[in-house]
């Protein structure tokens, strides 16, 4: 028995070592960094332990801007992309002709490189000496005024950012939801049909509860993913996100570590922990809500 236990731990050892070095140690390190006040990266010295780093980060206008950007992004894109994905999946599962073609079309963004997609969005939205961007051409066609989406007003930039995020996350959600819809036993629908259940009621009382575990999965991962947004912003607005006013929390952390203003690991650690706390809170709330509403199926 005892030998068996030792053997089991031996088998686990390689994984545990790697986890300890690359997961546990950095986590603890982040905690330590975040508490060390006036840490100097070059001389490896600090003046004391306390909450000064957090106070600095929370009062830094760049961080507050990043926080605001991230929250707007999360609140707009998660419900919008999930809802859109649900609509498209419902459409896809109710058509027969050309279904595979549409499935492929909707899935294409998933296999496309983020930066390549960013380039396409530049063409769509960016003003250059030669053109106003495709979207502006359309706006003008309908008698509107051209807007600078990349270097223009905040709302326009935010719109592009949200549009881009929704477009990028849609395919995966559609993929998950179409398979979730397909896995609902058709007998439920047949039973509902014999009982004369209206379509809307079938959707709200049967389909939605049946796919709710998958919906909650998408919402939770969607929240986490949106909170971690960074590369999308870079692809659209370049690396100097603070200047563009389009920074995100992860972007702020990156800038603190390596950016022009880099070399402040303590501030980065504090910001990372704040992000962690936010994501944790939202995820816990999500889990509680989903447990209360998710179906109790076998």
């Amino acid at each position, binding site marked *: 028995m005892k030998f068996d236990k030792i053997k089991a731990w031996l088998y686990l050892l390689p994984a545990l070592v790697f986890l300890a070095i690359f997961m546990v140690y950095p986590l603890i390190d982040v905690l330590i960094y975040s508490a060390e006040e006036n840490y100097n990266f070059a001389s490896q010295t600090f003046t004391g332990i306390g909450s000064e780093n957090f106070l600095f980060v929370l009062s830094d206008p760049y961080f507050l801007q990043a926080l605001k950007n991230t929250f707007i992004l999360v609140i707009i894109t998660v419900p919008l992309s999930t809802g859109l994905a649900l609509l498209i999946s419902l459409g896809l599962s109710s058509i027969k002709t050309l279904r595979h073609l549409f499935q492929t079309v909707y899935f294409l963004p998933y296999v496309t490189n983020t930066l390549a997609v960013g380039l396409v969005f530049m063409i769509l939205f960016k003003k250059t000496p030669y053109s106003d961007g495709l979207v502006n051409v359309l706006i003008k066609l309908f008698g509107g005024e051209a807007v600078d989406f990349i270097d223009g007003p905040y709302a326009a930039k935010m719109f592009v950012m949200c549009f881009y995020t929704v477009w990028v996350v849609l395919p995966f959600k559609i993929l998950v939801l179409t398979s979730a819809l397909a896995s609902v036993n058709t007998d*439920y629908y*047949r*039973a509902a049909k*014999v009982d004369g*259940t*209206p379509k809307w009621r079938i959707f709200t*009382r049967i389909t939605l509860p049946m796919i709710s575990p998958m919906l909650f999965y998408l919402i939770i991962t969607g929240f986490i993913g949106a909170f971690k947004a960074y590369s999308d912003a870079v692809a659209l607005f370049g690396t100097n996100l603070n200047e563009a006013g389009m920074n995100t929390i992860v972007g702020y952390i990156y800038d603190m570590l390596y950016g022009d203003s880099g070399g402040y690991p303590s501030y980065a650690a504090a910001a990372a922990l704040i992000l962690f706390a936010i994501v944790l809170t939202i995820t816990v709330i999500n889990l509680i809500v989903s447990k209360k509403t998710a*179906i*109790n199926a*076998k």
Partner: protein
Amino acid sequence: MKIVLKGLTKLFKSRNKDAKEPVVAVKNFDFEIPDGKLIGLLGPSGCGKSTALNLISGLETPTEGKIFFGDEDVTDLQPEFRGVGMVFQNYALYPHLTVRQNITFPLENFKKPNKLTKEQKEERVLNVAKLVEIEDLLERKPSEMSGGQQQRVAIARALAKQPKVLLLDEPLSNLDARLRLQTREEIRRIQRETGLTTVFVTHDQEEAMSISDMIIVMKKGEVQQIGAPQDVYDDPTNLFVATFLGTPPINVFDGRIDGGALYIGSDKISDVDCGVQGKVTVGIRPEGLTISDEGVLNCALKSVEVMGRDTSVVALNENLTSQALRAIVSSENARLAKPDLTFKVNADKLFLFDAESGLRIPFSAKDACKG
């Protein structure tokens, strides 16, 4: 409510792209299901019996033909307007709803003039729950119940909206053997109490025979025979019906009629008068054979299986085309079993079929099969 089917046909496109011919699931159904009876739609898997049920329910639309409920033509009516209650093979209970919510579900679909008040709904739910004896389980979820209980809930849900016709698709196939026996009695009782015209689909002949007022035997989309279970068993129209009904199954032999006498191999079974000469297929029910020294059918004993009240004698005969010859005899008679034994044949349990078409050949036995 009687159900009348007139020339009902359902064709499906073949999955096989090369096949030009469509698959015939139901072919030219022309019969009447009398009011208030329990009808068993019986046949091997893939014979189209579930399709037939779906046509009656309205879940499938027929390619040709008409369906009447009473005098009303319901062929083009959507399922919800036909007033059918349906129970599915896997029960199709909504897993996220309690039993009470499941049974209430159809009632909530009623539109304006027929809309029920909360009290009326509760009363209906309670009534059907009492009928199927699940009134203690109303707050449970389907996953917290046994298969038999789920089955009852499914029946209750189908009955709650007070349908004119109750349809059951393989209602017992997901239950274990003991529950199946119990539940089929239950279905019989519920049908009697409600007096609903009930059609149920099954591939289990014993199930169909035991509780049906009338059985419809199907094969490859075609009705083979319709009648009371005992009549169909005693008087099958063809070889398929004869072999499909009865456990153990009927013994089938290659035989021939020569000069007004029926032979199996070299054994003369009986003088028969049927106006046919040459090869025939002979079917003898297991209970139509008894061991006797003055018997007519020579066989080699294989084994004797004791089944309690009766004994099953398994024997070999070179002209047998079914799997093994079985005779169900009394235990006294089984004591006569010896390596080379002869069976006496009861003419009432002996059927002749055309060797090619399998159609029944009527005959009268002249010398009543020797004792």
